[in-house]
């Protein structure tokens, strides 16, 4: 199955965006983001702390719905999912 990862703002600059990855069934959302972010150390460090947990300001969405980062390790991704990862918003 495939899942699309979208990074925004600073994360996009470091890691790119609209990254489609093939993943096995029952892949955890946290592990998936870690795998993709590992392509660039600065990008990985911007999103994850030294223990491999999401930094507290990181915002996650699964198919347009916000998801607590603390829940992410338990959440599985499904075929066709769109996962968005971004820093605090600053519109207006």
């Amino acid at each position, binding site marked *: 199955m495939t899942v699309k990862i979208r990074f925004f703002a600073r994360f996009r600059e470091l890691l790119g965006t609209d990254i489609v990855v093939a993943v096995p069934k029952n892949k955890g959302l946290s592990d998936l983001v870690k795998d993709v972010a590992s392509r660039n150390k600065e990008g990985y460090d911007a999103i994850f702390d030294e223990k491999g947990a999401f930094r507290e300001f990181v915002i996650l969405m699964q198919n*347009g719905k*916000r998801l607590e980062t603390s829940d992410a390790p338990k959440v599985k991704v499904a075929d066709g999912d769109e996962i968005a990862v971004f*820093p605090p918003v600053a519109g207006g």
Partner: protein
Amino acid sequence: MIAIQTGDVDIGKLVNEAKQQGTGAIVVFDGIVRDDDIREMELEAYEEVALPELEKIASEAKKTYNLLSVDIIHRIGRLAVGENILIIVVSAGHRKQAYEGSRYIIETIKAGVPIWKKELTKDGGRWVPGEHQHGCGAGK
């Protein structure tokens, strides 16, 4: 009109169109690129999420503050100092509703709509930090 777009809008036209039967007050909020020693500002949005969130904010503001009309136009792309970033036009029967509704809309946008700004300076650029660290506003 609720939109995320690169182009500017005719605010005068929006004001004219906001005058409906029963209108006693129109409030215009116009957020502008400030000259903070920057060359330009670059804005980006998660449009597929941000646009429905703007629509939801407009609808909630209409209901809560008895607004007669709401326009929200958030611009993205590169904008020069002095250009409009965000235009909010609300009409209501009375000024209190119009002021409060407009304030609710801008604060709710800032709290949670996935849009980001980068200030481009002569030395490079810096992302504007969000005022709300967890982006816990609209759409949650």
